[in-house]
């Protein structure tokens, strides 16, 4: 095993079809027009020294070591900034060039620490490499000259350090922050020799606008910016490519190792979702895998008030199997079930649902994706025919207009947000529909054309109004609709949206937006020519979540913005494998590939493969499981990798359900909130410790590779397999790839997928089968998956959750960049430096009415419950709306949220809750009770007592 070496071509590819032929060092070379001479040479295998150029950034031309000679042209042009021209004859090595290059390197060396052994990067330091390659042997300037040797280091960021003494002011990191990340946190301050990199207004990295994406660290050719883990552990010696386990972007990383230790995670240039970029979570927040809180031994207990007792794997598995059989014996076959996780691999998810259907003998399997994106599945399936986003991420480069609704990409999907920002800087236009003024509305060099700050819960209304404008102002793409969609359904829909009650003028007051703004946004979206919709949980987590998704699909069809690059309807998935867990048959009514369990042919296929009869009746959804538990008919639950107590809405309902069960099995890395109600704890393995695949928001299936042995002894799927065996349904997989083979055999859209294929292609987007052996980047190209696109009527029905005198404000929830979901992992890293508590955002007006000041403790109450947290007074939220995150268990924002849910899918209505906010002195009684419970139920008996 060695370190993966990625060739740096110096400048980005030119992307031109016309080819130019030239001569480099005597060899004839042909490259696309506008390619730099530097890149042309690199592609031909001729290495020209370079320092300020790197192929993720536009050429800059500052270091001057890449100079070349071109016959017939004077001077020594820099090969990075000089494009090829037909017939030119380039020489990359001449005496004159050597002298100048050596002269430049001697200057660099004269202002650089000379004790090379103190350099953290050692031989990987590009400055040293170039110095060696140009033959620098001595530095004649003496050591008493003016240098930056004494400049103070900036070690404020927990993950990386900046040492200005080692900075060569190549601007690579400044440009990375601008071009790659789009944050513009860094500048060059001072002029001439005094030029140096400065974060923000000279305030240091931590306090600056920096979002710790790491792009600058990666871009730095020297050791000026470097991961603290490298300083501490030394340079890695081998690397393994794997996939980030945080969000639905699915960034590919090189896990760079020293022995069995991860030194750093470096985004992989060939990653098709991220193209070498990353965010703070994937790049830096992986330390949780080694956190001392991790539980490595199985544990059981009779009652949740007992302390945990560590047991062997054999005992834990046998105990669980016995309990589940006992419960089924007593309460019936349907009294147990399982919950799959969007955090786990496709293979693990598939296996859990197989366990439930084949070994439990019922269909009581559901997934936490229920709580986020089930409306996507429903909405897109019923309009287009597939439960998935229509585009790949690269498609955004062709978009002219982006409509972002109910999503906050800069925080939740940072790497894709950087892509969006780059496209927006290049001139694409932006419409944002969101109650909050999310960052994208205005960031450096990006400004939304229109921001529609709608009242939470009025998505459908505003989308109907946009459709109204499109239909009544003649903006429909008639040819597209005629050719590609069901005519009758369209006619009915068009009639519906054209009704006056759906006009912006009628809807404006409902959603609190100026009708003129709605009209303008509608016209811009319809004008395109390529308009793409991106949406998130702010669309799905509503009582009309599915309706909203359908409304978006209608808009795309009506304007012909579907079925090619640059357009489409794109859900931004929350967790890393939301798409995959849905694909894998995690819902009670569907087998993998979204085929209904009642469909005899599909069932027969699985029955033949699994050699058991399957129940034709859909099983229980998550909320119904809790209902049934309270009713006394559902008593055993196997929860893999999910913290439903914290992530599911209406915490009281969830905890009541769990408390009523007789055997709750939690498989996780940590004693999470749900484990407080568990009787069996099975330690889980982190993504670094297993093989498998994740499927990201663009349907891209990517390999997760094991870089170290599982600390708990088993990959998660192995535990599921052991449990199945103990239940009398033996499984015989020896590697995750065999599970994927079975998925491929049983799922037409996955027919062409295998680990071997993924190794070969890097990744693949489903459907991948005989018709599309390399996968499908953009869907619905010549026709919809369901044949003709179907318009569905989207009547706006206000949620039952209404503000009133007791609860006059609307609460909506979301997430922030540095924390992930329930925070189990990110809270166990230094990311907490940025977000160590959940805060309630409240408009200055509302705050003043209540006598609330910045930082005050406030009580947040709904009809479901109350919690306390501190206030942040900001105009980001509109008057009448408050906002918080749900990363910290102490806050338990979901104590507040209600049990209202999407009519079609039960996806909970996280995004709208009527609340009241009032000043208070500290945590509520419930919070205190709950933290007491947490302490009590997390006790682990000392090892001796276990005997």
């Amino acid at each position, binding site marked *: 095993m060695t370190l993966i070496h990625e060739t740096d071509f110096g400048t980005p590819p030119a992307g031109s079809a016309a080819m130019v032929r030239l001569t480099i060092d005597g060899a004839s070379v042909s490259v696309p027009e506008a390619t730099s001479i530097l890149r042309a040479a690199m592609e031909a295998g001729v290495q020209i020294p370079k320092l300020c150029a790197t192929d993720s950034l536009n*050429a*800059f*031309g*500052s*270091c*001057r070591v890449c*100079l070349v000679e071109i016959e017939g042209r004077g*001077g*020594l042009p*820099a090969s990075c*900034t*000089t*494009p090829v021209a037909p017939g030119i004859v380039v020489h990359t090595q001449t005496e*004159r060039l050597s*002298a*100048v290059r050596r*002269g*430049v390197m*001697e*200057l*660099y060396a*004269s*202002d650089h620490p000379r004790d090379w052994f103190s350099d953290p990067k050692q031989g990987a330091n590009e400055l040293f490499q170039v110095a060696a390659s140009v033959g620098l042997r001595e530095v*004649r*300037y*003496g050591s008493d*000259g*003016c240098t930056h040797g004494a400049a103070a280091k900036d070690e404020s960021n927990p993950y990386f350090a900046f040492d200005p003494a080692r900075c*060569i*002011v190549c*601007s690579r990191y400044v440009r990375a922050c601008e071009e790659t990340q789009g944050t513009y946190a860094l500048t*060059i301050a*001072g*002029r*001439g*020799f*005094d*030029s140096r990199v400065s974060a923000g207004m000279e305030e240091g990295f931590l306090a600056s606008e920096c979002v710790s994406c790491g792009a600058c660290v990666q871009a730095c050719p020297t050791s000026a910016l470097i991961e603290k883990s490298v300083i501490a552990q030394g340079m890695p010696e081998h690397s393994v490519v794997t996939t980030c386990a945080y969000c639905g972007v699915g960034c590919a990383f090189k896990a760079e190792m020293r022995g069995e230790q991860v030194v750093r995670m470096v985004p992989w240039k060939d990653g098709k979702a991220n193209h070498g970029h990353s965010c703070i979570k994937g790049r830096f927040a992986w330390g949780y895998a080694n956190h001392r809180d991790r539980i490595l031994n199985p544990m059981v207990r009779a009652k949740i008030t007992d302390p945990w007792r560590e047991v062997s794997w054999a005992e834990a598995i046998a105990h669980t199997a016995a309990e589940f059989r006992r419960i089924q014996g007593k309460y019936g076959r349907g009294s147990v079930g399982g919950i799959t996780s969007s955090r786990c691999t496709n293979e693990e998810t598939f296996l859990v649902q197989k366990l439930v259907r084949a070994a439990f003998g019922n269909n009581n399997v559901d997934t936490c994706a229920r709580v986020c994106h089930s409306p996507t599945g429903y909405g897109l399936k019923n309009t287009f025919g597939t439960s998935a986003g229509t585009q790949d991420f690269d498609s955004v480069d062709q978009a002219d207009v982006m409509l972002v609704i109910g999503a906050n990409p800069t925080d939740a999907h940072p790497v894709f947000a950087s892509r969006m920002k780059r496209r927006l800087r290049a001139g694409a236009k932006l419409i944002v529909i969101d109650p909050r003024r999310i960052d994208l509305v205005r960031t450096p060099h990006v400004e939304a054309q229109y921001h529609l700050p709608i009242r939470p819960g009025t998505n459908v209304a505003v989308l109907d109004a946009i459709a109204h404008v499109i239909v009544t102002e003649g903006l429909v793409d008639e040819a597209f609709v005629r050719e590609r969609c069901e005519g009758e359904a369209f006619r009915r829909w068009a009639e519906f949206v054209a009704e006056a009650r759906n006009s912006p003028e009628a809807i404006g007051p409902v959603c609190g937006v100026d009708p003129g703004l709605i009209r303008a946004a509608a016209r811009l979206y319809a004008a395109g020519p390529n308009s793409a919709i991106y949406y998130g949980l702010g669309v799905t987590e509503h009582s009309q979540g599915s309706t909203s998704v359908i409304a978006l699909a209608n808009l795309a069809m009506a304007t012909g913005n579907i079925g090619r690059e640059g357009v489409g309807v794109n859900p931004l998935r929350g967790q890393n494998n939301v798409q995959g867990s849905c694909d894998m048959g995690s819902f009670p009514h569907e087998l993998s590939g979204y085929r209904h369990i009642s469909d005899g042919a599909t069932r027969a296929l699985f029955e033949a493969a699994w050699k058991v009869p399957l129940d034709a009746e859909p099983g229980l959804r998550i909320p119904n499981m809790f209902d049934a538990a309270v009713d006394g008919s559902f008593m055993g639950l196997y929860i893999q990798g999910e913290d439903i107590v914290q992530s599911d809405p209406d915490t009281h309902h969830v905890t009541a359900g769990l408390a009523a069960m007789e055997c709750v099995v939690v498989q996780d890395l940590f004693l999470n909130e749900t484990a407080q109600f568990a009787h069996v704890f099975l330690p889980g393995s982190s993504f670094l410790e297993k093989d498998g695949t994740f499927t990201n928001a663009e349907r891209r299936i990517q390999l997760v590779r094991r870089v170290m042995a599982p600390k708990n002894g088993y990959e998660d799927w192995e535990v599921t397999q052991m449990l199945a065996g103990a239940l009398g349904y033996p499984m015989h997989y020896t590697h995750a790839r065999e599970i994927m083979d079975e998925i491929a055999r049983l799922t037409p859209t996955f027919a062409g997928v295998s680990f071997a294929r993924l190794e070969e292609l890097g990744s693949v987007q489903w459907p991948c089968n005989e018709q599309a052996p390399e996968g499908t980047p953009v869907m619905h190209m010549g026709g919809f998956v369901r044949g003709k696109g179907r318009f569905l009527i989207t009547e706006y029905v206000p949620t039952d959750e209404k503000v009133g005198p007791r609860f006059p404000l609307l609460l909506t929830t979301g997430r922030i960049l540095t924390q992930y979901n329930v925070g189990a992992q990110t809270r166990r890293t230094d990311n907490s430096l940025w977000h160590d508590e959940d805060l309630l955002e409240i408009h200055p007006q509302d705050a003043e009415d209540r006598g609330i000041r910045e930082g005050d403790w406030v009580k947040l109450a709904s009809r479901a419950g109350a919690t306390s947290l501190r206030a942040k007074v900001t105009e980001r939220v509109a008057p009448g709306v408050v906002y918080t995150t749900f990363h910290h268990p102490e806050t338990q924002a979901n104590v507040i949220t209600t049990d209202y849910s999407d009519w079609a899918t039960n996806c909970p209505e996280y995004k709208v809750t009527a609340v009241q906010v009032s000043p208070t002195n500290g945590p509520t009684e419930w919070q205190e009770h709950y933290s007491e419970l947490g302490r009590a139920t997390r006790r682990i008996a000392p090892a001796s007592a276990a005997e």
Partner: protein
Amino acid sequence: MTRIFIPRDSAALACGADEVAEALAAQARARGLALEIVRNGSRGMFWLEPLVEVETPAGRIGYGPVAPEDVAGLIAAGFPAAPAHPLALGPVAEIAFLKRQTRFTFARCGLTDPLSLADYRAHGGYRGLARALSLGAAETVEEVVRSGLRGRGGAGFPTGVKWKTVREARGARKYVVCNADEGDSGTFADRMIMEGDPFALIEGMTIAAFATGAAKGYIYVRSEYPDAIAAMNAAIGLARGAGLLGPDVMAGGFAFDLEVRKGAGSYVCGEETAMLESLEGKRGMVRAKPPLPAHKGLFGQPSVINNLVSFASVPFILAEGAKAYADVGFGRSRGTMPIQLAGNIRHGGLYEIAFGVSLGELIDEVGGGTASGRPVRAVQAGGPLGAYFPRALFDTPYDYEAFAARDGLIGHGGLVVFDDTVDMARQARFAMEFCALESCGKCTPCRIGSVRGMEVMDRLIAGENRSANLALLRDLCNTMKWGSLCAMGGFTPYPVMSALTHFPEDFGPHSLPAAAE
């Protein structure tokens, strides 16, 4: 009513021109003299400023340099007709310094009221634009090509060729940008036009806009030129009012407007791409070329960038025809150059003459040698990045190619004279110091090299390790010359190496490597 001309050029103001004008007005009031005082531009004879001129049927009669306290005496001697007064200079046009010139570009400067459009027109103004409109855009560009006009800002690139590139470039918008940052020490031609004949610049830029298809122009003026900025703004306002700028220029069916921007106060902001960055509101950092500004300039759009003198030369070329301009000159240097004589020189000022005159003639005859009266030892030509010429090279004709052949620079036309007390090693160090001070810091050879250059020069001056340090200095100059991104670092070696080559004795008493052989 007698018309009296007293310059309001800043060079004259610095010598008390305002006070002279006030004193004269007061005296006229007191004595009931019917005088009309016109504040004109400067004639460019700085040793005569403030130069007071009286309009007479026999032409303009000059008096200078006039101090405020001279006014009473002048009046007593019969001013406005005081031919016997010691300050009387006779007909201004007959003053040798002026008479020997060929004034194409500066024809009006000092003659007219700078802010009188009527005056401007009366002296041939706007004939150039009128002819351009009748020729059409393409032919206008050709006319500039034919004139042989080369950029007067530094590099001497053919102006017409540049315009042609912009004309043919595709872009959503196009811009015309005037470089009036005038950073070279001892140069003032740009300022004199802005203060003395601003409409010439406006007309020149308007012709450029018409020829290339631009609708908006910027004038980037050195921040130390508040009077010039005020004059330009006033002139632009007048031109707008007269329909010479705005939506339909001269009823010729095209739109063009101008805006004055104050420079960022650093030398390198005169480098065209740094100037563009500065105009875009960013730090004045040099951009790598390509892309050429003619293809992607201001805000990424095709842009004509020229020095002010280049633009101001265009109205003559269009009005009188390319041939009239190209007929004078030397070799590939056609037309005239407003040469600016400065430093230790007796007759400092602006001298517009056809190319080809020798350096020696300019310094010794036109300039009259040093002001100190000591022998001339060195002349720095072409600004702070230009080489030092010793007397031995005074036969060099004033011509781009001839200068280049001797590692010299025409640049913006500045000549700075030094007498025999100058220490050329210190001048060489100063060149490095200037570079260190003004470097934008983008590229390594200039950013670090200039500081190391100062250090090496310090060691040389202190007499340390002479031969090793000289070798290092030569290597460093080679690296800076060939490696720098722009001419700031790339030309700094010229003054350094010319000092070393022509004045080796200043670099130490001991034998030099070159001399040792």
